[in-house]
C-alpha cells in the first residue's frame, strides 16, 4: 500500500502574461504573449526521499519550486500536499509549518537589517510554536549549532557572514518550524565548490536524521547525483525524463538527457570525443511545436514535430520521447 506522497503535481502548469502594454499591442497589431514557464508537469515525491529537478535556464524548474510551496498558484492542473490541495492546505497554519524553502542567493535570502536570531526565529514566532522568549532563544541556539554555527552568531547581522555561512543560516531558518518538506532552489549554485561540499553533506545528514523530504532544484548534474533518489530532467517547461538517480546516469534515455551528460566538462579527461548538442534553448514564449526538443534532436522524426510526447514508462524510468517509445533509440 503506497503511502501518500508528500508532494504531487498533476499536470500542473503555470503561465505568465508577458504581453506588451495594450496600447503598443494595438499599434503593432500583436497578440498576447504568454510565457509557458511550466507546461503540464506530473510528478510525485514520496515521503522521506529526495526528488531533484535538473535542467538549463528557462526550463521552468524554479517555477516548479515556487508552485510546490505555494508562492505561485497553478494556472492549470493540481498541486497536492500530503494528499490535499496545496492552496487549501496552506490556509491552515499547522500545514504551512510543514513546508519550507531554501533559496539560491545567500545574499538576498536574509533580511540585511535583521539580526540572525530574529531571522531564524521568524517561523517560530509566525507559527506561535514556543511560549516565551527564553524557549525561543534556546531553540535558536540549538538550530545554529545544528547547522555548524555558534549560538553567539545570533547577535550578528547577515553581512558579517560568508556565502556558505549565510546558507547555513537559511537552513537553520527553514528547520526552525520543524518542517517535513523542504524545497531547495539551487541551494549551492552560488557557493564555492569546497563550501558546496560542506552544505551538501549537511543537508544529507539532516535528511537522514530528521526524515525530511526534499525537492531539490539544480542545474548541476554532478551535485544532483550525490543527493537524489529520483531525478526529473526538465526542458522548456516539461519533463523529458523522470528516473531513479542511478538509472538516469547509467542509462540516460531521452536524447536531451544524453546531450546534457555529454555537455558536462570532463574532469577525468578520458579524452572521449564529445559532440556538443547544437543550437540554443528556444524561448519559452514561442516553444517549438510538438516535442520542444525536436529542432535540436538527432533522432527527431515527423511525429516529433507534430505531436507532443507524453511521459511513458521505459524500463524503470518515465520518458517523454517518441523515438524511445518507438524503439528508435539504439543505445
Amino acid at each position, binding site marked *: 500500500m503506497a503511502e501518500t506522497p508528500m508532494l504531487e503535481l498533476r499536470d500542473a502548469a503555470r503561465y505568465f502574461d508577458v504581453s506588451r502594454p495594450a496600447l503598443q499591442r494595438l499599434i503593432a497589431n500583436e497578440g498576447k504573449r504568454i510565457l509557458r514557464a511550466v507546461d503540464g508537469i506530473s510528478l510525485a515525491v514520496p515521503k522521506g526521499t529526495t526528488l531533484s529537478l535538473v535542467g538549463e535556464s528557462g526550463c521552468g524548474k524554479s517555477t516548479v519550486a515556487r508552485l510546490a510551496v505555494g508562492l505561485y498558484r497553478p494556472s492549470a492542473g493540481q498541486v497536492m500536499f500530503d494528499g490535499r490541495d496545496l492552496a487549501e492546505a496552506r490556509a491552515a497554519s499547522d500545514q504551512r509549518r510543514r513546508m519550507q524553502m531554501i533559496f539560491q542567493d545567500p545574499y538576498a535570502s536574509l533580511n540585511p537589517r535583521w539580526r540572525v536570531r530574529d531571522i531564524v526565529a521568524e*517561523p517560530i514566532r509566525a507559527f506561535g510554536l514556543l511560549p516565551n522568549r527564553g524557549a525561543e532563544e534556546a531553540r535558536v541556539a540549538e538550530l545554529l549549532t545544528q547547522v555548524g554555527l555558534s549560538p553567539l552568531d545570533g547577535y550578528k547581522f547577515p553581512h558579517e557572514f560568508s556565502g556558505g555561512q549565510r546558507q547555513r543560516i537559511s537552513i537553520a531558518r527553514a528547520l526552525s518550524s520543524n518542517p517535513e518538506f523542504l524545497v531547495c532552489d539551487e541551494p549551492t549554485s552560488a557557493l564555492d565548490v569546497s563550501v558546496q561540499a560542506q552544505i551538501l553533506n549537511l543537508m544529507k545528514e539532516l535528511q537522514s536524521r530528521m526524515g525530511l523530504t526534499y525537492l531539490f532544484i539544480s542545474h548541476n548534474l554532478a551535485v544532483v547525483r550525490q543527493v537524489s533518489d529520483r531525478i526529473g530532467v526538465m526542458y522548456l517547461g516539461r519533463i523529458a525524463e523522470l528516473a531513479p538517480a542511478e538509472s538516469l546516469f547509467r542509462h540516460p534515455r531521452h536524447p536531451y538527457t544524453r546531450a546534457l551528460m555529454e555537455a558536462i566538462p570532463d574532469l577525468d579527461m578520458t579524452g572521449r570525443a564529445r559532440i556538443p548538442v547544437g543550437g540554443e534553448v528556444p524561448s519559452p514564449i514561442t516553444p517549438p511545436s510538438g516535442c520542444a526538443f525536436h529542432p535540436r534532436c538527432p533522432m527527431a522524426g515527423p511525429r516529433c514535430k507534430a505531436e507532443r510526447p507524453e511521459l511513458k514508462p521505459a524500463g524503470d524510468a518515465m520518458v517523454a520521447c517518441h523515438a524511445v517509445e518507438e524503439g528508435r533509440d539504439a543505445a
Partner: protein
Amino acid sequence: MAATLRRFFDSDLWWSFTRSPITMLSAVVALICILGALFAPWLAPHNPFDLASLNLLDAFKPPSWTAEGEAQYLLGTDDQGRDVLSAIMYGARVSLLVGLSATLFATTLGVTLGLLAGYLGGKLDALLMRICDIQLTFPSILVALLIDGVVRAALPREVHDQIALFVVIFAIGISEWPKFARTVRGSTMVERNKEYVQAARVIGVAPPRIMLSHVLPNVMGPVLVIATLNLGLAILSEATLSFLGVGVPATQPSLGTLIRIGNDFLFSGEWWITIFPGVTLIAMVLSVNLLGDWLRDALNPKLR
C-alpha cells in the same frame, strides 16, 4: 547603549563626517540654529511678544555696533521696538516647527503610499503614480498656495486663524509627498522580489507585516536623505508663504513674516529689520542642505 554608541563612532558614516570640514561646519551652524530656536524663551535677551516690555521709543534702533546702536539690542529693533535678535529666535522656532512637521507629514504619507503602491502593484499602483505625476507637474509652492487658498476661502476667518498653523503644515506636506512615494515605490519593487521577502511569504506572514517589518527598514535609507534635503525646502516654502502673507498667522511670526515686515522698511534705510532674518533663513536652509548632501554621499554604497 554604550555598544551602539561605540559602533556608531566606529562606523564609516562617522568617519566620512569627520573627513569633511564643510559638513562639520554645517552641522555646527544647524545645531546653533536649532538650539537657539528650541530654547528661545530662555536664551532670547527680550521677549518680543510681551507687549508690556516694548518701548516704542526704542523703535528703529540700528544694530549695536553702529553709532546709534545700543548694547541691549544686539541686532537693532523693528518698527515696534521689538528686539530683532529675539524676534529671529522666536521666528526661527516657528519656521523650524512648520518645516519639521510638514516634512514629517510628507514623509509619513509618502512612505506609506509608496510602500502600498510598490508592494501591492496593480491598479492601486497605477492610480497612485498617476496622482503623483499630475501633482508633480505643478511647482510645489503653487500646490501649497492652492491648498492654503482653498481652505482660507472655505472657512470663516476666526476658525481659520486658529488652525492656520496646521493648514500651512498640511499644505506644505501635501506638496512634497510625491517625492517620497516615488522613491519608496521603486525601492519596494526591488525588495519585493528578493528571496527574504519570499521566505516570509512561504511562512505565510501577512502583507502588511511584511511591508512594515521586512521591506520598510530596507527602503528607508534614501528616505532619510530626501527628508533632510526636503527640510530646507519646507522651511523655504513656509517662508515664501508667510512672505506672501498667506502662511502662518500674524500672532506667530516666522522668519518669513519677519522678512516681510522688514521689507517695507528696506528702502527707507532700516535694512537690519529684514536682512538679519534673511541671513538666518539662508544659514539654516544652507546648512541643512549641505548636511543632506553629505548624508546622500555617505550612504551611497557605490561611492564608498
